[in-house]
């Protein structure tokens, strides 16, 4: 019994949960507005794009890879789809637009996978290259102007709420329907990682590629799956992002890759592969979103935001590294 308690306490997720709860208590004590329903709904809304991307990246990290091209893929899916829907009005239905954007993302993700798997190139460098190519091609050949008159189905989507409440002071709080996509992706990926051959394979490939290959995992299929999934989710996020900010800017989301990697890593995913959970990733996203949205609430200038993110990344990765070291004493890791 005690060993079970100790194991539970030693879980990265639990530490993270405690930190997040403590942070919320401190912020709430400094500014009670933090506890309002509207603030909670706003935080949830902000967490949707970040959350879906973090889940996607989690799977890539588990398989021992990395992807920094997904913001470019998301923007490409968003902008091409919106441009298309404005030219061809008959396409202007939400499922069609989501399908187009996701398909664009899937295709670009599979392209990454092909380069990484068949030419055995380092994923960081490949996705660095494809990110340049995708952004450059989008801005050179599709357009550079921000689309402000979004397709009407996306506008309608942005106004659809899952839940609305009128507060005591007369203001209303609403929870966006896009949270369902986030929940759906999180549950599906959690189940896939736990119960499917391809999900277990991602862990196996990330822990030791050669061993996984010899045991008989289909490495090619796993690579295509993880990078394809990342791309498809990025495409999906493109449309959701456009609906949240109500425009489609082809220069948008630059630098988001670092925030998403930080969220996944804070959540306990190993950058060298083989380790990481959906629960951890969700807590990482929660911590990032709460920090991001609440510094202003407690009266700190927004400039401090990046300092805190940096410190959290450093502390969290240090804890993970120290823990790994004590678990595998004697091994020289870098």
């Amino acid at each position: 019994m005690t060993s079970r308690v100790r194991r539970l306490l030693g879980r990265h997720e639990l530490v993270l949960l405690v930190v997040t709860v403590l942070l919320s208590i401190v912020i709430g004590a400094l500014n009670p507005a933090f506890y309002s329903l509207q603030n909670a709904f706003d935080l949830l809304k902000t967490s949707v794009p970040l959350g879906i991307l973090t889940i996607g990246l989690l799977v890539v990290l588990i398989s021992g890879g990395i992807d920094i091209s997904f913001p470019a893929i998301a923007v490409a899916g968003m902008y091409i789809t919106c441009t298309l829907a404005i030219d061809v009005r008959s396409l202007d239905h939400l499922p069609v637009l989501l399908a187009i954007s996701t398909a664009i993302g899937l295709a670009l993700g599979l392209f990454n996978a092909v380069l990484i798997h068949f030419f055995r190139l380092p994923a960081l460098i490949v996705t660095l290259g494809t990110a340049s190519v995708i952004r450059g091609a989008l801005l050179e050949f599709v357009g550079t102007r921000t689309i402000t008159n979004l397709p009407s189905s996306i506008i309608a989507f942005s106004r659809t709420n899952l839940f609305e409440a009128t507060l005591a002071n007369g203001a209303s709080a609403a929870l966006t329907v896009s949270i369902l996509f986030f929940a759906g992706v999180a549950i599906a990926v959690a189940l896939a990682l736990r119960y499917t051959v391809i999900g277990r394979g991602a862990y196996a490939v990330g822990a030791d590629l050669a061993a996984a290959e010899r045991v008989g995992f289909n490495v090619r299929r796993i690579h295509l799956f993880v990078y394809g999934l990342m791309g498809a989710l990025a495409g999906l996020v493109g449309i959701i992002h456009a609906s949240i900010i109500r425009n489609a800017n082809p220069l948008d989301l630059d630098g988001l890759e670092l925030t998403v990697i930080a969220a996944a890593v804070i959540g306990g995913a190993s950058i060298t592969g083989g380790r990481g959970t959906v629960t951890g990733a969700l807590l990482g996203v929660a911590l990032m979103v709460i920090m991001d949205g609440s510094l202003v609430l407690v009266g700190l200038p927004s400039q401090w935001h990046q300092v805190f993110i940096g410190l959290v990344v450093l502390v969290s990765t240090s804890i993970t590294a120290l823990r790994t070291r004590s678990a595998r004493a004697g091994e020289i890791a870098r």
Partner: protein
Amino acid sequence: MTGRGAPAGATLATRLASGGILGRTPFARLVVFTVAVFVSMTLLVGSDRFLTTANFQSIAFQLPELALLSFAMMLSMLTGGIDLSVVSIANLSSIVAAMTMVHVLRGEAGASGEAVAIVAGVGAGLCTGLACGLVNGCAVAFIRVPSILVTLGTLQLFTGLALVLTGGQAIIGLPDSFQWLGNGTLLAIPVPLWLCVGGAAVMAVLVNRTAFGVEARLVGTNPIAAWFAALPVRSVLVRTYVTTALVSSVTGLLMVSRANSAKADYGSSYLLQSILVVVLAGVDPAGGSARVLGVGLAVFALELLSSGFGMMRLTSFATELAWGAFLLLVMVINSVLERRGK
């Protein structure tokens, strides 16, 4: 140019297949690539416009910043790591340097005041770089956090500190004579280029001719073997990240001088570009290799490309597209040829 073992008068096809026409080593391919860029830009733009002193003068002013940052990146990759914080170190150093200069200048007017301000500013900037490098190096060497994560964190931390220090505003009012570093010429050659060539020479000696260089290479090739061979792995790692940071802060000083102001978000596109340059130069991101000449050549090729694109009135987006495409192409060619060689 014919492939090894290919009969005399081999056809173009067989030479292509053996990789002969593309050069047998990554460096040879880089030379071929640079010449190809040079020739095609000259033909496309027109030699009367492309092959001018003014064009090469402007390339000579632009190239050193990216080149120095790429040397810094190369050094971190030599030990098998990566330093994502190079640009943020450059910016933080430049801001500390600029703030020091402005502060000293306010107290002491006149030519002697300028000299004091510049010395104090440069000193403060380099000390900032040293401190940043120590943070990175100690976290990598002693806590053993993967370098990509350490520097991802410090990238945010240093940029955040720069934002907090400046409040997002640009710092202006620097000593006039400091502009010479970024905009002056010495013997008809731009000062930044002198600085860059000097940096390359120091880097070449450091990597190829010193005990530190050899140790760093061995650590990058196989850290566990280096550890068992009783190499001072931790000390090598700390020194690597400190040197990387110092080179970055020199770049920061150059950037301040050239723009005559300092800002927290200058040159953020340099991060990915410097990785691109280093990989294009044939440096193995997995560690154990460094190519000073290759990095210089790769920067030159990319600057030729972007200046040519600029003259053809193509946008910077087309340049980004071309850079990315070249990176992928070079890597795919290297990979295919390497596997064929085995």
